[in-house]
């Protein structure tokens, strides 16, 4: 999992949301339900609660829009970009936008909820049979009023259960007509219309008047999409017309001819050659629930994951029986903790629930103090750290910067501006360690000290030591020559750097998190991706190369570049 720079998250647990408008593709109660279930995905595993507001400003403002919908990131017609959301914060931050050039469903084709009839709002059942004929869409067959209907069971003849399908003849949504149906023909700007139109609007949404004269009554509503309507193109809302003629050839079903992307389309009149009226044929559509659950993950502070099965993986794929992936759970619980109360969710099974470390008892590698008998190497007091262009490693121990070089180290007292204290012999304080230390870090929770040299590492707890052990024990690949830096990230996570990659170590579980390695400059852009020293000091990340350091703030912005010897060693 990934979080946004600075671990952006909400500073309260009772998050609010508001649905600003609706897509014509699904009835509004289906959309409400899809969003509510999408929020429940996250509230099931965290202490977060989600409360819907019907006016005012909510934390997460949800809206549908097409192409340029008012923020700097326009959508791109059908398919491609489906939606986007902003990380937590004020204003547009935390908001989620859905591309209404997509065909929004529950992922398995038109989601048609009926009204009236005798099925109490049940969903259409496709296919259904009526008078020995099978239907996979709503139909006006059998009716004289031209209202589309469907059966809500597989066999209308047997069960006689039915309802009316969304259509502009049945109701409208939004606008100012309280859901009244369209009146055709109606007059708008002096012109007569006998079907829904996008005229007069720049957002591409189809509307109609709910009286016979919009100019006089200014009463209107938006037209729901019929399940047989084409999507996009230049005839949105119209049904396919079969047969139709295209390049002189007759088609009585959707075709991808004439397109390079293989998408199925149809004409909405009997001749594309003459009228050039077309649209994409209804397909499975995109599950609004799945896409919303992903976008709400962003709105809560999660960035994209590179785990293919994770909800926060950037590409859409339909999943029938959805369940949140462990990577998503770990990510959201990293930000907000796990759920407390009557049905808490335990922390992830891999991480042990006790504080004891799951060390294996591999005796051949491990030694414990004080059986180590080494001789303390004499230090050379004449060595001046200000003359070095490079150190083996620089790290922070007990709040003080430590500079290691060839078996010796210097300390920068954090309380004074004096120069470095030392040299001290590494072997005097940590006798098991070799002369060259590539990197080291102090585990914030347990105060354990980790030292890396080549492909081996040692863990000091006070004076007792475990190691050397192979870094493969931590789950690092054997291709690594040495660990060049370590960034403790809190909550038991430490980033380990080598070459142009970094891994995230779960110290408690003693294993590398899934989805790693990542490229250093993909996450820490602007710093050298071959730094030989990486450490964290007073809330900043430091990447060192030769005599220089690049300093990064918690928002991962390089805010300073300077000399190690003047700024850190105070030479």
């Amino acid at each position, binding site marked *: 999992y990934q979080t946004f720079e600075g671990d952006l998250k909400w500073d309260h647990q009772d998050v609010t949301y508001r649905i600003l408008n609706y897509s014509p593709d699904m009835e509004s109660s289906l959309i409400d339900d899809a969003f509510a279930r999408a929020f429940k995905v996250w509230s099931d595993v965290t202490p977060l609660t989600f409360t819907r507001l019907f006016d005012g400003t909510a934390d997460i403002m949800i809206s549908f829009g097409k192409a340029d919908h008012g923020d700097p990131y326009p959508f791109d017609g059908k398919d491609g970009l489906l939606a986007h959301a902003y990380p937590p914060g004020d204003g547009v931050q935390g908001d989620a936008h859905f591309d209404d050039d997509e065909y929004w469903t529950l992922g398995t084709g038109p989601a048609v909820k009926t009204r009236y009839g005798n099925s109490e709002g049940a969903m259409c059942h496709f296919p259904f049979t009526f008078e020995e004929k099978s239907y996979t869409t709503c139909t006006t067959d059998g009716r004289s009023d031209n209202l589309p209907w469907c059966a809500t069971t597989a066999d209308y003849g047997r069960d006689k259960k039915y309802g009316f399908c969304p259509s502009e003849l049945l109701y409208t949504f939004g606008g100012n007509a309280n859901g009244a149906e369209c009146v055709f023909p109606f007059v708008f700007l002096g012109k007569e219309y006998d079907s829904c139109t996008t005229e007069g609007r720049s957002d591409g949404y189809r509307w109609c008047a709910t009286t016979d004269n919009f100019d006089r009554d200014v009463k209107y509503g938006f037209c729901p999409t019929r399940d047989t309507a084409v999507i996009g193109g230049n005839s949105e809302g119209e049904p396919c017309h079969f047969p139709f003629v295209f*390049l002189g050839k007759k088609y009585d079903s959707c075709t991808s001819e*004439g397109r*390079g992307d293989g998408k199925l389309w149809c004409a909405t009149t009997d001749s594309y050659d003459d009228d050039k009226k077309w649209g994409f044929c209804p397909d499975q559509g*995109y599950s609004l629930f799945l896409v919303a659950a992903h976008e709400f993950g962003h709105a809560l502070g999660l960035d*994209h994951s*590179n785990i293919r099965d994770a909800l926060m993986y950037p590409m859409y794929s339909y999943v029938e029986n959805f369940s949140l992936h462990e990577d998503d759970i770990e990510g959201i619980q990293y930000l907000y903790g796990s759920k407390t109360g009557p049905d808490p969710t335990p922390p992830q099974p891999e991480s042990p629930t006790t504080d004891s470390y799951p060390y294996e008892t591999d005796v051949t590698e491990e030694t414990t103090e004080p059986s180590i008998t080494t001789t303390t190497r004499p230090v050379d007091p004449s060595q001046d750290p200000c003359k070095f262009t490079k150190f083996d490693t620089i790290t922070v121990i007990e709040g003080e910067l430590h500079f290691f070089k060839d078996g010796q180290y210097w300390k920068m007292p954090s309380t004074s501006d004096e120069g470095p204290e030392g040299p001290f012999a590494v072997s005097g304080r940590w006798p098991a360690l070799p002369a060259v230390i590539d990197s080291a870090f102090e585990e914030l929770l347990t105060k354990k000290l980790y030292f890396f040299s080549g492909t081996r590492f040692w863990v000091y707890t006070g004076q007792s030591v475990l190691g050397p052990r192979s870094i493969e024990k931590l789950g690092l690949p054997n291709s690594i020559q040495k660990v060049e830096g370590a960034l403790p990230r809190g909550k038991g996570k430490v980033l380990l750097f080598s070459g142009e990659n970094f891994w995230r170590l779960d110290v408690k579980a003693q294993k590398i998190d899934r989805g790693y390695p990542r490229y250093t400059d993909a996450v820490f852009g602007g710093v050298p991706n071959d730094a030989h020293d990486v450490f964290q000091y007073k809330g900043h990340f430091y990447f060192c190369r030769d005599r220089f350091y690049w300093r990064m703030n918690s928002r991962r912005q390089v805010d300073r570049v300077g000399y190690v010897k003047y700024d850190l060693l105070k030479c």
Partner: protein
Amino acid sequence: WSLPLKSVFVTFPGDIIKNMTDTELAENYLKKFGYMETQKRSGFQSMTSQEKALKMMQRQMGLEETGDLDWSTIEAMKRPRCGVPDVAN
């Protein structure tokens, strides 16, 4: 054998998506989702920039890290997805 269809590509009125070459698609994709931006910002070029950006994208999507615009990478770029960039800029 039946004659192969002689596909004629038509520009449909009102169609937002233009027929792009694979290279244009790749450049557009790598830029839109932050892969190229990072490369430029870091300024430390260890490989040709598009190659490195492709490698990042292939790693993010769990594809084989070839650094080439191979078939599976192009197909991945055509898949419907979230609009939030993969690499924050």
